[in-house]
């Protein structure tokens, strides 16, 4: 990992990451679908790891350009496992109770056809 030796280094790194997130240039990274799986203790206990693995394998199999990553607790403990999906140029959407069957439905309908499926969890909070 590269050393951050000054405030300037820090700012540069921040800009780089921010750029790579927002700009709509052509590289595959920017047009990728991002999938975040809530993988805190309760998520994992509810099967988030299986869900995560499913997304990784299924999207690879279907050759869909997507980045699957883990994240912390989204706080909807009652609806674990929870997954947040951001299609390019769209608002992120959170789905609850995402077992592998649900994950399959999400891939087939939301990711491929932009159709919502049952289990969308509306964002119930503002954040800093």
């Amino acid at each position: 990992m590269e050393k951050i030796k000054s405030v300037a280094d820090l700012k540069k790194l921040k800009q780089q990451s921010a750029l790579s997130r927002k700009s709509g240039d052509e590289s595959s990274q920017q047009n990728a679908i991002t999938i975040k799986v809530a993988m805190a203790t309760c998520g994992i206990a509810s099967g988030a790891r299986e869900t995560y693995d499913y997304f990784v394998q299924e999207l690879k199999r279907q050759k869909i350009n997507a980045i699957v990553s883990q994240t912390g607790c989204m706080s909807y403990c009652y609806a674990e496992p929870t997954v947040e999906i951001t299609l390019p140029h769209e608002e992120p959407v959170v789905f609850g109770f995402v077992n592998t069957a649900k994950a399959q439905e999400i891939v087939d309908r939301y990711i491929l056809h932009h159709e919502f499926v049952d289990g969308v969890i509306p964002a119930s909070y503002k954040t800093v």
Partner: protein
Amino acid sequence: MTKTHIFVCGGIGCRAMESEQLRKNFQREILVRGLSDEVQVVTTGCFGFCEKGPLVKILPDQTFYVQVSPDDAAEIVSEHIIHQRKVERLLYIDPETRKRVTESKDMDFYKRQFRIALRNCGVIDPDNIEEYIARDGYSAIAKCLTEYTPEKVIDIVKKSGLRGRGGGGFPTGLKWEITRKSENSQKYVVCNADEGDPGAFMDRSILEGDPHSVIEAMAICGYCIGADKGLIYIRAEYPLAIKRLKRALQQAVDTGLLGRDILGTGFNFEIEIRYGAGAFVCGEETALIHSMEGCRGEPTFKPPFPSVEGYMGKPTNVNNVETFANIPVIINKGAEWFSAIGTEKSKGTKVFALAGKINNVGLIEVPMGTTLREIIYDIGGGIKDGKKFKAVQTGGPSGGCLSEKYLDTPIDYDNLIEAGSMMGSGGMIVLDENDCMVSIAKFYLGFTLDESCGKCAPCRIGNKRLYEKLDKITSGEGTMEDLVRLKSLSLVIKDTSLCGLGQSSPNPVLSTLTNFYDEYVAHVKEKKCPSKQCKDLINFTIIEDKCTGCTLCFRNCPVEAISGEKSKIHHIHQDKCIKCGLCYSKCKFEAILIE
């Protein structure tokens, strides 16, 4: 072409108001009108605005309809979907402007939650420092090191009004200032991550979801008080949090954000992890320090406070995880911004672990001053299974049980203490009509009994006696004198115990005695448990008129206490019955009577 979506809230609160029927009606309308290809109906999770349910949101135009009845489905489809005209009467009226709100993005106010401490949880990959940096991570420490003197930073924290989120609510800035003023060549920053309160898990979530925020804040604290060493005392029962924290520490070291000469400013700071070993009392800062020193986690009398004489006898600043998680935001956004949130004496937000008999169990973060009603009914989606609310327990074993009359009390440190409870670390357990308050008090006392360190007499013996009395009462052997003794003994334990554990351990007893005295009296005088929970005071019998002989209870009984043949009336053998209540919950014909 983008499809039109009709989001129908499937949260339990809305379901109770026929949202399921509403959804069916929508589907029928769409089918009848041949719109199936263009319009899709989706059931969602709770919107967190249950008092105005059932809720419907239309995409892509973001229109938000409230209090939609099943009969409104036809009108919404014909007016909104087909004719592109909003159904004015179903739009929400902003109580302040008295205007109808058309789009949900203008309706942020229904979002009761505001996330500061949890800002990155569920947003970033905790194992990737770059994601943290992308969200302003480490910019606060950079700002402190390059633009502010330590005194200035302490001033900001003081002005922000931030108080310790671990329970006591001591002003954080003041603590930092005292530690700064304690002269010593070696000082320590300690992060208390020994979250022991049963039913609270916000610290775990923060460490699992956003470990860098705590690391950054500890470094800021180190800069302020003049410490180059930090220690995180974490529960060994949190393996995932430990793993993520270790990885985050490694990344911070690898990138040079921890270690020597941070950001080229000459400031040095390093962090080590210490493990708890299963002792709730180690949440108390002196006990925690002794535990880190390899000793029994027994608290010592304060003063001297750790700020003056702490770890290894050196000045030590102890804050908990949630407190630290607020710090970088306060530095970045400023004291005024932070202190504008919350109540007069409690600033900012508080994370609560909402659990128990509530629909939306989860971690929530709300501004100080939010009422229990807002939390339970709007965010929590109301009581599970449509049962009646009885109480909410806040503050874990140190807190108390608040009854209905406190539902509209704005929650902050002082109001909770006034109500006989405590903020604690933010556990919030909702109880319904089926929960026996005497048993709940006994449950908490049982916890304290297990966790008391045994050093001081009132806590060591007093809590045992309280527990024994509660046990006597729940067994139907209590007397009215026991109730008097419970109270007087509780007050002395509070008044004389050595540390916060003992000083607050009788709170569950006192608050239930105050708010649910009738339940105690029922146990004592009538030998009855109104909630039908106390095993010694209840019997399960079969109502012969209602029993259909379906054998469901017979098959589910774990101890074969039920006899009977198919289509014949069943019978419960009282000598075998362990009163687990399974038959009662399984019977479809309400044929089991608890008396």
